[in-house]
C-alpha cells in the first residue's frame, strides 16, 4: 500500500500535469465506454439466456429452446440482470442509489465476473460433456461473448492503480474501508426488509436444494458466491446485519417461519428428505459448536453422541429387531432417554479426557469416537453382549405418531401434500428451535462467558476462579445431549440404525470430520454458521455425483482455500471478525494492532 502511494507521488511530481493520474482502468478505455460496455454486456448476457445454447437435450436442463431460458440459462439471466442493475446504480439512476452506497467499483466488477463465470462454466460444461465445440449453437457463442463484455468494461473502470498487477486486481474486488453513514430506517421498513430478504433467501435456498443435476448446482454455487461477494463489497451485508441486530427476535421468528415454509414449497418428498437430513446434520453441528466454538475443545469423535442417541431411540422404539422389542416409548420419552444416554456417555468420556489440553484432547476424543463404532459393531451376541445386533444394526424402526398424526404417512394440509419426510422435517425444525434456544441462552450467560474465557486463556480463566474441568465437562455434556436429541429423530427418519455412519471420516455426512468442517466452514461461535456449513456440506456430496470418490479431495481443497481467504468462516461472529480482520466499527484500534497478520488476510478477502 505504502509503495503504491509513493510511486504515485513520484509520478505526479515528474509529470505534474495529469489531474488524476491514479484513477485509470486496467484497460485504457474512457469511463463512459466502460459503463456502456457493462450495461450493454449485462443486458446482452441476460438476452442470450433466451437463445438455444446447444442442439441436443442430452445436456441436462434442455438448453435447446429459443425464446425461453432453462436450467443454467436462468443463472446467466440473473447474473446479467444483477450486472445491469449495479451499473445503472453507478450511473446514478434515481431509486437505485441504495445498491451502491459507497459508489465503489467492486460490486459491479464482481457481478460481471459472476455472470462470466456462470456462463462460461455452462458453455465449457456443454463442450466437455457433449464432446467438442461443435455442439454449441450460435446462442452459446453469443452468451460466451456477451458475458465477456461486462468483464472488459469492468476492468476499464478507473481505480487508483499501481505497478503491481496482483495488487491492481485486488483493488477491483476490495471492499472499501469506509461507507457513508447509514441513514436511519423506520422500524417497519426494517421489518419489511427482513421479510423480503427471508423470502428471497428461502427462494434461493430452495432453488439450491431442488437443483436436479450437478452442473446446475455448480453454476448455482458460482453465482451465489459472486452475488454475495458483490453485495458484501457494496456494504449490503453489513447494512443487513445492522438491521438484524435491531430486530433479533423478529429475524429469528422469520427464520423459523421460512424453515417451516420450506416443505410447503416442495412437490417431491425427496427434497424434503434432503431438508430433514440437513436439519439433523445442522443441529448436531450446532451442538458441536458449543464444544468447539465456545469452549474451544477440539472434539474429533463427536458423531458418536449422535450414534448413542440414535441407538437409544432405536432400542426403545418398539422395533421387533430391538433387544427390547416389547418396549415402545412415546417420542418425548425416547427423545429424553436418547439425550440422557448421550449426556451420560459424554460425561463418561469427558471426565477422564477433559483434563488434557489441546492436541491430546483431540486425539483422545478421536479414539473414543472410534471405540463407540467398534463396540457397537461387536455387541451382537457373539463377540460381546447382544445389544445392538452388530453390523446389521436395528432395522424397521416404526414411524412416530403424535395424537393419531402418523408421521410416516402423507397428509394434505391446506391444499399442500406433506409426505413422510416433510413431516419429519417439521419435527426436526422444532428440535432445532430447542437447540438454537439452548445455544443462544447458554452462550449469553455466566457459563457461556466462562467457556469463552477457557477458550481464550485457560490459565488466566482458572486464576479468575473458573473451575476449568467442571465448566468444560458441562460444555461437553451439553453438546453430547443435543447431539443425542438429534440422533433420536434421525433413527426414525432413516428407518434403521447401523454402525457405519458413525465414523471419523467418510464421503457422506454426518461423520466427525464433516461435523467439525461444518462448524469451522460456517463460522465458529455463531448460530447461523454451522447451519449454513451443514447445508453446504450435505448438499455438495449429494449434488455432485460426478465427483464420486474424489469428493473428499475436492472438499479438502475447498477447506484449505476457505481458511486462506476467510479464516473466520462464512458467517463470522463479531469476535472472530475482529480477530482476523480488524474492521469493526466499535473496535477501531487506537494504536497499531498487536499483530500484523490481519492486514494480510484482509487484503486476501
Amino acid at each position, binding site marked *: 500500500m505504502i509503495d503504491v502511494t509513493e510511486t504515485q507521488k513520484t509520478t505526479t511530481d515528474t509529470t505534474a500535469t495529469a489531474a488524476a493520474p491514479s484513477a485509470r482502468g486496467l484497460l485504457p478505455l474512457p469511463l463512459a465506454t466502460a459503463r456502456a460496455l457493462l450495461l450493454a454486456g449485462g443486458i446482452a448476457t441476460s438476452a442470450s439466456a433466451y437463445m438455444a445454447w446447444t442442439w441436443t437435450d442430452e445436456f441436462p436442463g434442455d438448453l435447446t429452446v429459443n425464446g425461453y431460458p432453462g436450467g443454467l440459462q436462468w443463472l446467466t439471466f440473473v447474473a446479467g440482470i444483477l450486472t445491469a442493475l449495479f451499473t445503472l446504480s453507478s450511473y446514478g439512476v434515481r431509486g437505485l442509489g441504495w445498491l451502491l452506497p459507497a459508489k465503489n467499483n467492486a460490486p459491479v466488477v464482481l457481478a460481471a465476473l459472476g455472470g462470466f463465470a456462470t456462463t462460461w462454466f455452462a458453455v465449457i460444461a456443454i463442450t466437455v460433456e457433449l464432446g467438442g465445440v461443435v455442439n454449441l449453437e450460435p446462442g452459446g457463442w453469443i452468451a460466451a461473448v456477451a458475458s465477456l463484455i461486462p468483464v472488459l468494461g469492468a476492468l476499464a473502470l478507473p481505480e487508483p492503480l499501481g505497478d503491481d498487477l496482483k495488487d491492481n486486481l485486488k483493488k477491483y474486488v476490495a471492499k472499501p474501508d469506509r461507507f457513508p453513514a447509514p441513514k436511519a430506517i423506520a422500524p417497519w421498513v426494517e421489518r419489511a426488509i427482513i421479510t423480503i430478504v427471508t423470502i428471497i433467501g428461502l427462494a434461493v435456498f430452495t432453488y439450491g436444494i431442488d437443483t436436479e443435476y450437478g452442473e446446475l448446482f455448480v453454476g448455482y454455487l458460482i453465482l451465489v458466491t459472486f452475488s454475495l461477494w458483490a453485495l458484501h463489497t457494496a456494504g449490503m451485508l453489513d447494512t443487513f446485519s445492522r438491521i438484524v441486530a435491531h430486530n433479533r427476535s423478529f429475524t429469528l421468528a422469520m427464520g423459523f417461519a421460512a424453515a417451516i415454509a420450506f416443505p410447503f414449497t416442495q412437490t417431491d418428498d425427496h427434497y424434503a428428505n434432503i431438508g430433514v437430513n440437513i436439519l439433523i446434520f445442522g443441529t448436531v453441528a450446532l451442538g458441536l459448536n458449543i464444544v468447539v466454538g465456545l469452549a474451544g475443545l477440539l472434539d474429533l469423535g463427536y458423531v458418536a453422541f449422535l450414534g448413542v442417541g440414535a441407538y437409544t431411540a432405536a432400542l426403545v422404539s418398539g422395533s421387533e429387531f430391538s433387544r427390547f422389542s416389547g418396549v415402545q416409548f412415546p417420542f418425548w420419552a425416547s427423545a429424553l432417554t436418547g439425550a440422557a444416554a448421550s449426556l451420560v456417555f459424554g460425561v463418561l468420556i469427558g471426565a477422564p479426557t477433559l483434563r488434557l489440553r489441546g492436541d491430546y484432547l483431540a486425539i483422545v476424543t478421536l479414539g473414543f469416537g472410534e471405540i463407540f463404532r467398534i463396540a457397537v459393531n461387536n455387541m451382537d451376541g457373539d463377540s460381546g453382549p447382544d445389544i445392538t445386533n452388530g453390523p446389521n444394526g436395528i432395522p424397521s424402526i416404526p414411524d412416530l405418531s403424535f395424537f393419531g398424526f402418523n408421521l410416516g404417512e402423507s397428509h394434505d394440509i391446506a391444499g399442500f401434500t406433506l409426505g413422510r419426510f416433510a413431516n419429519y422435517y417439521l419435527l426436526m425444525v422444532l428440535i432445532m428451535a430447542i437447540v438454537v434456544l439452548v445455544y443462544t441462552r447458554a452462550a449469553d450467560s455466566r457459563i457461556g462467558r466462562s467457556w*469463552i474465557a477457557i477458550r481464550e486463556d485457560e490459565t488466566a480463566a482458572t*486464576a479468575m476462579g473458573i*473451575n476449568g474441568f467442571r465448566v468444560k465437562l458441562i460444555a461437553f455434556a451439553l453438546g453430547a445431549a443435543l447431539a443425542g436429541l438429534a440422533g433420536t429423530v434421525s433413527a426414525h427418519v432413516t428407518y434403521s440404525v447401523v454402525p457405519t455412519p458413525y465414523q471419523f471420516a467418510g464421503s457422506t455426512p454426518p461423520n466427525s470430520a464433516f461435523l467439525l468442517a461444518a462448524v469451522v466452514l460456517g463460522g465458529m461461535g455463531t448460530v447461523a454458521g454451522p447451519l449454513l456449513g451443514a447445508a453446504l456440506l450435505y448438499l455438495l456430496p449429494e449434488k455432485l455425483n460426478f465427483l464420486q470418490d474424489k469428493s473428499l479431495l475436492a472438499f479438502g481443497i475447498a477447506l484449505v482455500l476457505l481458511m486462506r481467504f476467510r479464516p473466520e468462516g462464512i458467517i463470522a461472529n463479531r469476535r472472530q471478525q475482529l480477530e482476523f480482520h480488524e474492521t469493526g466499527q466499535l473496535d477501531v*484500534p487506537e494504536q497499531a494492532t498487536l499483530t500484523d497478520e490481519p492486514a494480510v488476510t484482509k487484503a486476501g478477502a
Partner: protein
Amino acid sequence: MRFGGLTAVRSVDFTVNSGEIVGLIGPNGAGKTTFFNCLTGLYVPTEGTVSYKGTVLPPKPHLVTKAGIARTFQNIRLFANMTVLENVLVGRHTRTKEGLWSALLRGPGFKKAEKASEERAMELLEFVGLAHKRDHLARNLPYGEQRKLEIARALASDPGLLLLDEPTAGMNPQETRATEELVFAIRDQGIAVLLIEHDMRFVFNLSDRVAVLVQGEKLVEGTAEVVQADERVVAAYLGEPFEGAPGEEEAAEVAEAEAAKAETGPAKTSVTKTEDEAPADAPAEEESTTSTKGEAQ
C-alpha cells in the same frame, strides 16, 4: 517449590496484613513469580502450605480465588477476544452462582444476578477509568489500559488480597504514577496488596514493607530503610564491593549519579535513596497470612 533438581523457592515465609501494601523485590530469576504461582495454586508446592485467614488453601487456582486471593500476570493475560466488560464479568465468576439451568430457563433470579454482576463490573471499570471502553475488545486496548483492565478483572472477584505481578512493567513515568494512585485506592478499600516490581522507586513509594527474595530465599523483610540499608541486598543486586583500591569514591559517585537520575526516570537498583516513605497506618482488622515453606535441598 522444586523443579527437578532446581529449588526455585525455598522457605519463604511471610505475612501480609489487611490494608497493607507489601512489595516483593529481587533480581531476575529470584523466584518471585514462582512464589506467586505457588500462592495462587498454579504450581503445586513440592512442600509446604499456603494459608489465608488461618485456613490452609488447596493448590487449585479457582479455589484460591474463591477464598479471596486474586492476581494479575506478569505478561498480560486478558481474554483478548472478549470485550472489556465481559473480561470483568468473568472475574465475577466466583461471586455468582447461576449455572446452566438458570441460564436456559432465564428466571427472574438469573436476570437479577446478571444485572447485579454488570453493575458491579461497571463500578470497577469506573474505578480504574475504563468505563467508556466497555464494548471494546480487550486486545485492542493500549498497553497501559490492558494492565488496568487486568487489575479490574482481578478486583471483580472481591479479593481480600491482591497479587500484582509487575504492574508497571513497560509503563512510562506518568502511567506508573497513575498505577501508584490506583494501588493506594485499592488499599484504601481495605484490600491487602502484595506486588512484585522492578521499579524500586515505585516499590519503596508504595510499600509499607518490602521483602527481598534472592535465589528462592527471603533475604530480608522490613520497611524501606531497613531493606535499602541492608548490605546483602546491595550485594545481591550489584555484587560484592571491590576489596582493592578503586573502591569507595567511585561507588559514591555512582550512587550520586543515580540519585540524580532517579528524579527523571525509574532507578534500577535499591541503592538509590528515595525521598519519602509510604504512608502506612491502615488498621489491621483482619489478618491474611500467606506463607510457603519448602525444604532446602
